[in-house]
């Protein structure tokens, strides 16, 4: 007789899958945590880069305008 598709291997498969699945869950939480940290550091690096890109020159101007002797705004804006 042609072999019928039997249900017998399935329980074996289910039982077999339970073991690696539990270990897989632990691994996935650790992996998820690592991924979260990596994404968060990437996000901070990108934001710092944008902040520095737009804010560095204004920061120098603010520090310079507050140093002694204080220059005036007119001195900052005139070309000569």
């Amino acid at each position, binding site marked *: 007789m042609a072999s019928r598709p039997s249900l017998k291997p399935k329980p074996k498969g289910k039982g077999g899958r339970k073991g690696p699945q539990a270990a897989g869950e632990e691994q996935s939480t650790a992996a998820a945590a690592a991924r979260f940290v990596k994404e968060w550091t990437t996000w901070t690096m990108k934001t710092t880069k944008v902040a*520095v890109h737009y804010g*560095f*020159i204004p*920061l120098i101007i603010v520090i*310079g305008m507050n*140093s002694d002797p204080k*220059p005036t705004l007119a001195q900052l804006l005139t*070309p000569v």
Partner: protein
Amino acid sequence: MAPPPYGAGLAGILPPKPDGEEKKEEKVDYLNLPCPLPFEEIQREALMSLKPELFEGLRFDFTKGLNQKFSLSHSVFMGSLEVPSQSTETIKVPTAHYEFGANFLDPKLMLVGRVMTDGRLNARVKCDLTDNLTLKINAQLTHEPHYSQGMFNFDYKGTDYRAQFQIGNNAFYGANYIQSVTPNLSMGTEIFWLGHQRKSGIGFASRYNTDKMVGTLQVASTGIIALSYVQKVSEKVSLASDFMYNQMSREVTSSFGYDYMLRQCRLRGKIDSNGVVAAFLEERLNMGVNFLLSAEIDHSKKNYKFGFGMTVGE
């Protein structure tokens, strides 16, 4: 009119005081050696004389000081920039840009920022954290992703040594150390590691200088050997020569140049073993106004670069 110190007669009888003898009599105190130059500056004199900032086109720099410490700068450039290419043909790209900059210079903190019309920011920070420890940050930020670069340097200055640790983007880590061995000789090593390309290298450098000459040697595991020699012929004239051998590409380059520092101008010229002749003139027209002329002629590659410019302000 004040009388001469010894009286007119004695000045002719007393022998002139020998200057050289005082220095010869000093015994070398090996526990009290001077601090050496930083590792990246050991070839400073040779680089200043042999590698002026040659350009092609028009350059205009205006620096306006608002304060002792704070100044703004405006810089215009119209001309061609050379793009490094693999083939023997040089590729020139005509560009024009305006660059705005702000500088804040304090003994303890130095902030220099330059921004161009296309949004590129060039930032340099130097901060003295303590008397001996300095933090330097150097960054070039662009709007295009993945083209920005940054480098953090921590410098420690000891009594007769200097140590530096560098962290850069693309996981670049480097460290170098330089030590004074005698009052005239200093030797140092450096090591670096590039994370993304898994490359590392180690190098060795030494510098010997007296009042009249400076000689340096640099050897690196990347296959580069560089030697340089600068002789100060007089207060106003110095001659420099440099030799570089690249083992990877089997290239040898040697150049010889002069540097005339006169009252009204500074003229630097050099000739290369590739047949390139270059000259750079900075002429002081007035207080704070400098006129620049730059020329570089390469007959073999048919590359002729002439530039002129002006610098106003300190």
